[in-house]
C-alpha cells in the first residue's frame, strides 16, 4: 500500500471519528430535551432542577430495573427503594405497582409510616385532579394513621370540610370509618366525634360500643345519664337501652320516661323486649301505665312478640284491650311472627283461618316478611325466593297474597329481571301484583321496546293501559326519536291514537327547546292529536301555551 493511501486512510478515519462525535452530540441534543438553562432560570433553579433530575434519573433507573426483574428480586428492589424513599418519592414508586394490590398495600403502608399528612394531602390533591379516590390507599392510610396519631388524622379530616373537589359523601364515609376505629378503643370519644362531624349517612360500626357496654353493664346507665342527648343518635340510644335493660330494665325504662319523645322511643324499644322475657307481668303493667297512646303502642309490639311465643291468644287479647291506633291493628303481626317462629304450618293455618279483611292482610304481610327477612336483593337467592313464592301461592286468599307480594316486589325482583319474567310466565302469575307487571314492562322496554309493545297483549287486561304507558315512557326517556317513529308508523286506529297521545304527553316534559323541536317534527296530520294530548295533560299553563305554540 502506498504511503499516500495510508495517509488518506488515516485522515479519513480521523474525519470519520470526528464526524461520529459530532453526530453523537447532535443526536443527543435533538432527542434529549433540556429541562432548563442557567441564563433563563438562574443557579438556584438549576440546582433544584438538578436534584429533581437526579431523583428522576434514579426513579427511571429503578423503573427500568423493576421491569427487568421479577419475583422476590423485584420485591426486594421495591422494599429497599421504599426503605430509602422520602414521602415525596412515594407517588412515583406507586406508579410502578400498576394496579398490583399487594405492591400498593406495601408501599402505601410505608408512605403512611413516613408522612401520613403528606400522603393525605397528596391523595386529596390527586383526587381533586382526577376526580377519583383510590380506596386502597385511603384505607391503608386511615388504618395506619389511626394507629399512630388519631388526633392528627381527625384534625386532617376536619380541615377538609368544604374543600373544592372533595365529595361530601366521600368525606363522611372516611369520617365514619375513623369513628368506627375510635369506637374500638374509646366509645365515648367516638360518639362525641360522630356528633362533631354530624355523621348521619355513613353510620359507623357500633358493635364495639355494644361490646364495651356488655363487658361492664354498669357503663350503660353511666353513659345514658352522661351522654348529651343531641350527641346520641337513635341507634346509639337503642344499644344503650338494650344493654341497660339486661341488668335493670325497670330502671332503664324509668330513665327513658324522662327523655324527649324521639329519644325515648329509641331507647326503650329493645329494653321492653328483654324485660318481657325476664318479667312479663311487670313489663305489661309498665306499658299499661303509660299515658301516651303512641308510646304505649310502640312498647306493645316487642312485648306481644315476646309474650306470643308462649301464649299467642292471651297476648293478642291484651293488645286489643290496652293498645290503640295502628299498634292495636298491627299486634297481629307480632302474634303471627311469634307463631311462625315456632311452626310455619301453624302460622299458615292461623292466617287461613282469619276472615278476609285488613287483619288477615296484615297477618299475611307479616308472614311473608318473616320468610324473606334475610333475602338480600343484591345477592338474590333463587331458592329462598321460590320457597316464599310457593308458600304465598298456597294461600286461598289470592288477593291478600298479591297485596303482600306487592310490598316485597322490590326486594325479591328488583335486581333480577329474569326471575321476574319467569315468575310472570309461570303458574303463579295470578298472584303477581301490578307493580311487577310494570317493572317487567319497563325492563322489556329497555331490552327491546318494539317487541315489548308487541307483547303487551300478554299482560292482564287490568294492567294493559299502564303497562303500555310504562313501555312508551321508558322508551321515550332513552330514545325519543325511535319511540316516536315507531308510534307514528303504527296503522291508524285506537292503539295508535292512545300511543301517540302518550308520547305527546311525554314530549311535553322534555326541556323547552328540545320539546319544541320534537313537536315541530311531528307529521302535520298528527298535530291535532298532539294538541289534544297536551291540552289534557297536567302542565303549568305557560308551558302548555309554549308547547301549543310549537304545534301551530
Amino acid at each position, binding site marked *: 500500500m502506498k504511503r499516500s493511501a495510508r495517509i488518506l486512510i488515516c485522515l479519513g478515519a480521523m474525519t470519520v471519528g470526528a464526524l461520529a462525535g459530532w*453526530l453523537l452530540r447532535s443526536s443527543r441534543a435533538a432527542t434529549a430535551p433540556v429541562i432548563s438553562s442557567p441564563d433563563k432560570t438562574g443557579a438556584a433553579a438549576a440546582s433544584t432542577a438538578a436534584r429533581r433530575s437526579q431523583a428522576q434519573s434514579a426513579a427511571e433507573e429503578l423503573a427500568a430495573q423493576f421491569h427487568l426483574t421479577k419475583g*422476590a428480586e423485584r420485591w426486594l428492589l421495591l422494599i429497599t427503594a421504599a426503605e430509602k424513599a422520602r414521602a415525596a418519592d412515594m407517588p412515583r414508586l406507586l406508579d410502578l405497582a400498576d394496579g398490583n394490590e399487594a405492591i400498593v398495600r406495601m408501599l402505601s403502608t410505608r408512605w403512611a409510616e413516613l408522612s401520613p399528612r403528606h400522603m393525605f394531602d397528596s391523595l386529596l390533591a390527586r383526587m381533586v385532579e382526577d376526580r377519583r379516590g383510590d380506596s386502597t390507599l385511603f384505607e391503608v392510610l386511615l388504618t395506619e394513621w389511626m394507629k399512630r396519631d388519631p388526633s392528627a388524622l381527625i384534625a386532617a379530616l376536619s380541615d377538609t370540610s368544604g374543600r373544592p373537589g372533595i365529595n361530601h359523601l366521600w368525606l363522611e364515609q372516611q369520617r365514619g370509618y375513623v369513628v368506627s376505629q375510635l369506637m374500638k378503643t374509646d366509645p365515648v370519644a367516638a360518639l362525641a366525634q360522630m356528633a362533631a362531624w354530624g355523621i348521619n349517612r355513613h353510620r359507623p360500626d357500633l358493635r364495639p360500643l355494644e361490646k364495651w357496654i356488655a363487658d361492664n353493664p354498669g357503663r350503660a346507665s353511666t353513659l345514658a345519664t352522661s351522654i348529651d342527648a343531641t350527641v346520641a343518635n337513635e341507634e346509639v340510644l337503642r344499644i344503650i337501652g338494650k344493654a341497660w335493660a339486661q341488668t335493670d330494665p325497670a330502671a332503664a325504662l324509668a330513665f327513658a320516661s324522662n327523655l324527649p319523645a324521639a329519644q325515648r322511643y329509641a331507647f326503650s324499644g329493645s329494653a321492653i323486649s328483654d324485660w318481657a322475657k325476664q318479667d312479663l307481668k311487670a313489663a305489661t303493667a309498665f306499658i299499661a301505665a303509660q299515658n301516651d297512646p303512641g308510646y304505649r303502642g310502640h312498647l306493645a309490639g316487642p312485648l306481644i312478640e315476646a309474650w306470643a311465643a308462649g301464649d299467642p291468644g292471651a297476648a293478642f287479647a291484651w293488645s286489643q284491650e290496652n293498645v290503640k291506633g295502628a299498634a292495636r291493628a298491627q299486634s297481629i303481626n307480632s302474634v303471627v311472627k311469634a307463631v311462625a317462629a315456632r311452626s310455619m304450618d301453624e302460622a299458615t293455618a292461623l292466617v287461613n283461618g282469619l276472615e278476609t279483611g285488613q287483619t288477615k292482610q296484615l297477618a299475611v304481610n307479616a308472614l311473608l316478611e318473616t320468610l324473606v327477612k334475610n333475602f338480600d336483593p343484591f345477592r338474590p337467592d333463587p331458592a329462598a325466593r321460590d320457597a316464599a313464592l310457593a308458600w304465598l301461592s298456597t294461600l286461598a286468599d289470592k288477593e291478600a297474597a298479591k297485596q303482600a307480594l306487592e310490598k316485597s316486589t322490590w326486594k325479591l325482583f328488583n335486581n333480577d329481571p329474569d326471575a321476574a319474567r319467569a315468575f310472570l310466565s309461570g303458574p303463579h302469575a295470578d298472584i303477581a301484583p301490578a307493580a311487577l307487571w310494570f317493572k317487567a314492562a319497563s325492563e322489556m322496554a329497555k331490552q327491546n321496546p318494539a317487541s315489548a309493545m308487541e307483547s303487551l297483549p300478554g299482560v292482564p287486561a287490568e294492567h294493559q293501559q299502564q303497562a303500555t304507558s310504562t313501555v312508551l315512557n321508558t322508551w321515550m326517556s332513552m330514545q325519543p326519536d325511535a319511540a316516536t317513529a315507531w308510534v307514528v308508523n303504527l296503522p291508524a286506529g285506537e292503539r295508535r291514537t292512545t300511543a301517540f297521545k302518550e308520547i305527546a304527553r311525554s314530549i311535553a316534559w322534555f326541556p323547552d327547546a328540545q320539546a319544541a323541536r320534537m313537536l315541530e317534527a311531528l307529521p302535520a296530520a298528527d298535530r291535532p292529536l298532539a294538541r289534544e294530548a297536551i291540552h289534557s295533560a297536567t302542565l303549568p299553563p305557560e308551558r302548555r301555551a309554549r308547547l301549543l305554540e310549537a304545534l301551530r
Partner: protein
Amino acid sequence: MIQVRIMSLFSRRSPSASPVSAMTDAALVAAARGGRKEAFVEIVARFQPLVCAVAYQRTGSLQSGEDVAQETFVTAWRKIGELREPEKLRAWLVRIAGALAVDHLRRDKASRREPLTDEADFAAAGMLPDEAAAAHDEEALVWSTLESLPESYRLPLILHYREGQSAAQVAEALELSEDAVKQRLSRGRDMLREKLSGLVEGVLRRRVPSTVFVLTVAAAIGALTAPAVVAAGAFTAGATAAAASSTTAPVLTAMKASKATLAAAAAIAVVSVPAGYAVRGWQEPPAVLVNAGVAPAKPAPKKPDFSESALYAEWRRLHEEHQPVPQAMPALYAAIAGLNDPFRRRAFRSALIAEWAETDPQAAWKFFTGPGGSVERSYQLMHEWLTLDAQAAVTALLSVTGREASYPEFFKDISRHAPERLPEVLAKSPKSQAWDTRAEDAFALMAEKDLGFARATAEGIAGPWRERALNGVMREWAEKDGPAAMAWAQSQPEGAARDEWIRQTLTGWAKQDPIAALDRVDQVPPGGNENSSSDTASRVLGIAAERDFDATLRWLQEHPGKVGSQSLTALGNVVASHFLADPAGFAEFLRSNDTGGVLKSAVQSALLNDAYSCKAPLWEWVNRQPASDPTAKDIREHLLRSAAWYEPEQALKWMAELPDSPEFAPLTLSIAESLQNKGTDISHQTEMLAAMPAHLRTALLRSGFALMRPETARDIPHALTQYNALPVGERSLVAGGLASQWAHDDPEAAIAWAATLSADERLKATEGVVGSWATYDSMAASQWITELPPGAERDAAAKVLSMSISEAEPESAWRWSVSIQDPAVRAETLPWAYAQWHRRDPAAAAQAFEEANPTPAEREAALKFIKP
C-alpha cells in the same frame, strides 16, 4: 445496508465464527445464546424495521415507538434463552414489542411528563418553538389519520414508508403474499389520500429511525463498549457514505489489504471522536441538565444492589436463620408474621410469597389455600405464579375445588400470560353480575395485544361466557376500527347478545370518534338496568363528552330527539369536571350558550354530587346575576337542594339570604320540603325554626307538617304548639298532616282535636284522620263515618275512606262513593271507585254503576279510568 456493514465489523473481530448475515433466524438465536453478541446485533439489524413499525403502531408516537423498539431488543437479549422455538423469533419479537408498548403507554400516562413549554426548552431540544409545535402536531395528525385505518392496512403502510421496505420485504415481514401487500398498500394509500396522504407519507419518510439505533442496542447489550460504540458508529456512518459513492471503494479495498492500517485507522477514528463531540458542543446553548428519561439511547439498567439496605440485611438474616430451602418457607413465613413493624411485616411477607412462588409454588399454593390459609396471600401467590409459569399456575388454580368464585380475580393475569387457557377458566367460573366486567376487561386486554387471537378465542367459547368475552373484544376492536367492529356486530344473529356487542362497539368507538358513535346510538335497543346511566346513550354520551365535550354538545343540540332525558344525566360527570375546573366560568358558559336544555339534568346531577364542593364561588356567581336569569335560577335551586340534603345549616344560611318576595316563595317552600329529608322530627325542626328569618318560618312549618311521619310526630303537644304558631290562614293547609299522624296512634284524640277547629281546618283534619285510620282499621273508621251527620264533613270523610280502601275492598269503596251527597265530591270519587271494582269484577261493577245513575261527567271519567 448499514446493518450488514456492522456485521462485517463484528465478523472481523471474531474471525473464527461463521458470517452471521448468512445465518437463518434459528441459527442466529442459537449463536446469540452461545454468547455471540454479533449474532444478536444481526437480529437487531434484521428485525429493526418490523419491530419499529409494530412499536410505532402500538404507541402512536414515532419517538416512543423507537424507544420501545430499543427496549424490545434489550429485553430480547436478556431473555433469548427463554425462546423455546427459535424459528419463531419474528413472532416472539413482535409479542415483546407489543407488550412493552402497552407498558410504555401505561408508564407514559402514569408519569405525566411535563410538556415542553418554554422557548429555552425547545431551543435546547434543537427546535424552534413553532417547529416543535408543528412537528408535534404533524405527528399527532399522522397518527390520528393512520389510526383511522384498519390494522391490516396500517402496518404495511408504516413498514413501507417509515422503514423504507419494498413490497417484497413487507410481504416477508408480515408473512403475506407480495400481491396482498401491494393490494393493501394501494388500498391504504387510497384511504389516506382522501385525507392527507402527502403529509403522512412525508412525515413517515422523514422520521426513519436514527442510524444509531442498532448501535444503541448493541451498546445496551454490551456488544460494544462505549468508545467502541462511537467508533463503530463512525465507521458505520463513514461506510454508509462510502457505499453511496464509488470513490471510497478503493479505501475499503486498501483496508482489507492491510490489517495494521485498518487497526490504526480504527484507533485514529476513536481518538477523533471526542474532538467531533466537542465541536458539536460549541454550537449548542449551554445545557446543564439532560433529562435522561427522554433520551432514546437509554443505558442498560444496573443490577439491583441491596448491599446498603438494612432491610435486605434483615431479610438475609431471616433466611440464614431458617435455611434457604423451600421446606423452610412455612417457618420463615411464621417468623415474618411475628415482626412488629407493619411495613416490614407486609413487605417481607409479600417478598416471601414471591420467593416461594419461584422456589416451590405448588407447596405455597397448598399452604395458602389449605386450612388456615389466607385469601389475600393466595391471591398474591397466584398473581406471582402466573407471571412465572402461567401454565402450571392455571392448572393449580383449576385443581382446587370450592375456589371458583375467586377466578375472576385472575382473569386479567391469565389473559396476559396464558390467554389460550382463559376459556377453560371461564367455563368453571360461576355466573357473575352484569356490573362485574372482569371477564370483559380480560378479553379487551387480549384484543389490545392481538385482536385476531382474542376474537377467535372468544368466538370459540361455548355457553354464556361467550357473550361476555366478545363484549370485551368488541369494545377494544371498536377502539381500533369502529366501522369494522360495527359491521361484524350487526352481522350477528338478532338477540340480546348482538345488542350488547353493538353497545360495546359504540362505547369503544366513542373513544375514537364520538360523533360516529352518537349517530348510531338508536340502532340498538336502549338496554341498561336500574342504574340510570347504564342505557346505550348514557354509556356513549359519557365517553363522547369526555373525549370532546363541545362536539358532543353540538351534536345533542342538532339531534334533539335522539337521546332522552334519562340518558342525558350521564353528562353529569363531565359537567361536574367543568364546574370544578372553573365554577363561575362554566356557569357563565351555561348562561351565555343556549344549550337547548340538554344539560339541565346533568347540571342538576353534577351539583348534587361532586360539583357541590364548589358551592361558594357558584353561589357568589348566582348572586351577581339578575333574579330572573334562568341559568342562575336553576343553579341556585340545585345548590339549595343539595345543601338541604348534605348540610341543612348551609341551606338555612342561604335561604336567609333570599329576598322576601313572592318570586322566591315557591323556591322557599320547595327547599323547606327538601330540608325534611333529614328525617326531621319536631325537635330538630324547632332548631331549624330558631335559625330561620321570620318570613321563612311558615314555609318550614308547612313543609314539616305536610311531610310528617309517625316517627317524626312523637311529641303531639309540641306539634300542637307549632301548629298554633302558624298564621291562621295557613293552618288549614297543614291540619290534615298533623291529624293524619295523630290518628296513627290515637284516632279518637285526633277527632276530638278536629272538632275544636274552624270549619276549613276541621274538614282537612277529618280527611287526615280518615286517611290514616282506614289504612289500619277501615272497619272502625267506617263505623265512625256512619255516625256522622250528613254534610260536608261526612262527604269528605267518605271520599277519603273510599279512596283509601278502593284497592283492598273495592266493593265497599264503591258503596261509600255512592253514599256521597255533594255532586262535586261524588264526581271526584265515584269514577275511581268504579274503575277499581271493575278491575276485580267487571260484571258486578257495571251493573252497580248503571244502578247508581251516573252523571255524564261521571260516566266519561269512569270510562277514562278503565280505557282512556
